[in-house]
């Protein structure tokens, strides 16, 4: 099997060079003292000028966390994390209230520019509309919230969103400006006691995005947050809360990058989504945290809790994720289908290469009547990586007429990697209809040779086959993201073949 051998050889060469976003931005930063204690929690809360109730909430979570132990059931293997050896807060200096993009450290703006993120919507921020004939009809507007280490540095299109009644701002601001909304919803989907990492996040989260879409409003543009970890030894603990009120619609995109570092960095985010009656939330992620180098050194530990609550009848929550980065991924975006006739979707592409370990999937919890869910998961393992799909589909006793369709496909490149599927299926009433399909395949020599005989290079051939394999999921992404994601998939497999 010489081509397989060649693939394996190429995989060996996968390297930090393949990671385009591995640069570090040199800026001064304001950090909390190393380690985790009540003092750290108070420090963060104070930095954010938080009200007393918020501090109390954090402290309760912290005390709870002290009693918890790290989960070990996932199929991932890593050295024990020393939670006292991390910084829990880091903010770019100088720290002052920012009113326009011009006041942001140009180094940070340059960082986002390098990442290709359209932050400089200054004209739009100032309310200057493009002249007639100059607007590009193909380019849909995207409002961006950029989170650098622990703080949100800029949110664009604020004015335009305000007109529609949509609130899109850093969560630290929302805590101060919309305490009634935050108090009502924060922790209502992922309680502070939920799991080790979520509880940790509740204690020390520093920023993230907050979205509220009022009843009947269709959010006029895509909302987007870009997370960047820059500081050494810093944990990033962002918190995102999205509420779609009755009959509203919002599409939210999330992108992530980090510099290359030898040591591992911890990322433990919590995302909560609430969809009321007839509301729809579409949440898309392109995760490209640093995956570590060719020996498996460095990279991000990504322990994330994402959960959506279809609280209202006929509500809908859809998760789409393209996961290519991180040394360790531990992530199960889930839907609680509480409202009658509500529906949840999970579309995932998880690519692992080098020494990456992915344990990801979803939970669809059917509580309401006639609820439906759909899971399409595509795992691609190359190099010496391990790629596990872990999913739970469950129907409550009262969830009559629950329906689920699950399709998990895994594709292996080379013979040193592994793909695993661990589905948990539970139906507590007899009217549930659950379907599960799973396949595992290798990119066959014959398919590659066929493409190569038609003039494609080995690398182009793999790219073509993989893109065909993930097509069903790519189609779920908003157009701009789909193109990005397609490129990202090719880049992350660049090391795996010719």
């Amino acid at each position, binding site marked *: *099997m*010489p*081509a397989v051998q*060649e693939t394996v050889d190429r995989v060996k060469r996968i390297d930090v060079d393949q990671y385009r976003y591995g640069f570090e931005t040199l800026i001064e930063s304001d950090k909390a003292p190393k380690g985790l204690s009540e003092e750290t929690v108070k420090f963060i809360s104070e930095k954010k000028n938080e009200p007393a109730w918020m501090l109390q909430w954090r402290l309760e979570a912290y005390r709870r966390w002290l009693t918890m132990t790290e989960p070990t059931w996932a199929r991932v293997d890593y050295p024990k994390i020393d939670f006292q050896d991390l910084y829990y807060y880091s903010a770019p200096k100088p720290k002052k209230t920012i009113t326009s993009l011009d006041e942001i450290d140009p180094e940070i703006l340059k960082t986002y520019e390098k990442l290709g993120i359209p932050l400089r919507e200054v004209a739009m921020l100032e309310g200057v509309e493009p002249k007639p004939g100059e607007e590009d009809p193909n380019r849909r507007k995207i409002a961006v919230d950029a989170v650098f280490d622990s703080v949100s540095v800029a949110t664009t299109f604020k004015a335009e969103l305000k007109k529609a009644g949509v609130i899109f701002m850093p969560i630290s601001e929302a805590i101060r400006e919309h305490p009634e909304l935050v108090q009502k919803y924060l922790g209502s989907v992922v309680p502070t006691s939920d799991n080790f990492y979520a509880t940790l996040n509740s204690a020390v989260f520093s920023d993230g995005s907050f979205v509220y879409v009022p009843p009947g409003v269709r959010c006029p543009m895509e909302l987007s947050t870009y997370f960047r970890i820059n500081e050494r030894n810093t944990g990033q603990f962002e918190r995102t809360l999205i509420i779609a009120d009755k009959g509203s619609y919002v599409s939210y995109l999330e992108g992530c990058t980090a510099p290359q570092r030898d040591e591992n960095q911890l990322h433990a985010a919590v995302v909560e989504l609430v969809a009321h009656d007839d509301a729809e939330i579409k949440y898309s992620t392109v995760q490209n945290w640093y995956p570590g180098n060719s020996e498996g050194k460095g990279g991000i530990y990504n322990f994330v809790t994402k959960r959506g609550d279809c609280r209202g009848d006929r509500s809908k929550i859809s998760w789409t994720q393209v996961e290519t980065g991180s040394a360790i991924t531990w992530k199960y975006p889930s839907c609680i289908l509480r409202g009658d006739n509500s529906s949840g979707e999970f579309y995932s592409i998880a690519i692992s290469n080098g020494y990456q370990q992915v344990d990801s999937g979803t939970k669809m919890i059917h509580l309401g009547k006639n609820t439906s869910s759909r899971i399409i998961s595509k795992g691609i393992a190359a190099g010496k990586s391990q790629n596990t799909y872990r999913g739970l589909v469950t129907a409550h006793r009262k969830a009559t007429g629950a329906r689920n369709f699950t399709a998990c496909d895994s594709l292996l490149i080379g013979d040193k990697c592994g793909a695993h599927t661990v589905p948990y299926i539970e139906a507590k009433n007899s009217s549930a209809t659950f379907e599960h399909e799973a396949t595992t395949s290798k990119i*066959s*020599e*014959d*398919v590659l*040779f*066929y*493409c*190569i*005989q*038609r*003039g*494609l*290079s*080995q690398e*182009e051939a793999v790219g*073509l*086959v993989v*893109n*065909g*394999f*993930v*097509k*069903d999921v790519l189609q779920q992404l908003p157009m701009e993201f789909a193109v990005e994601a397609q490129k990202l998939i090719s880049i992350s497999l660049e090391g795996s073949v010719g």
Partner: protein
Amino acid sequence: MALLEVKDLKVRVEEREILHGLTLTVNEGEIHAIMGPNGSGKSTLSHVIAGKPGYEVTDGQILFKGEDLLEMAPEERAAKGVFLAFQYPVEIPGVTTMNFLRTALNAQRKARGESELMVPDFLKKVREVSKSLNIPQDMLKRGVNVGFSGGEKKRNEVLQMALFEPSLCILDEMDSGLDIDALRIAADGVNALHSPKRAMVVITHYQRLLNYIVPDIVHVMSKGRVVKSGGKELAQELEESGYAQFEDAA
């Protein structure tokens, strides 16, 4: 200068010699048929010419338009005009035939230093070609060979042959898995593509295919060598007397 010259070719697969010194010359515009029993090395020959991994050439050479073919990567050979129509074309789910054709054509053009075809030009070209071969447009929108019948798969091969305009076409067991009608349609396609500049090498078990694609020269292979060459009447002779008479010759 001959289009293809195979000289005293010796090939091994996993330590076992399959071709023991094979010689074959194909000129522009000629149609050659290579016949022989199972295991005689017919498919090995086609794979080695196309550059499929897994074969070790221990001796001999292959010249294509005077250049050393064995020095070229398989995709380079494709760009230079070597086309292999597969016995069992593979399925590529999620990749539309149209997308596949465009990606492949542009990869070949790029390798030759030509500009890539823009979408409208490509669409025009592919429509013309598929129309001339009576291939329904609907087939182009489906995943490459996914759910295609045996006949459709072979027509897809012929379509690619027409689109890429190779100078050497090797048809590996084109008749396998086809009923008589599908065989005729596929053969008509091949005949339509025959030109004074393009040579065809038809590899087949049975004489049946040669009723539709009429060869100029017929070679009989046995045990890794060409043991007899002749005109098209040789195929007929084989049909009547079988391959046994050549076992000893090899």
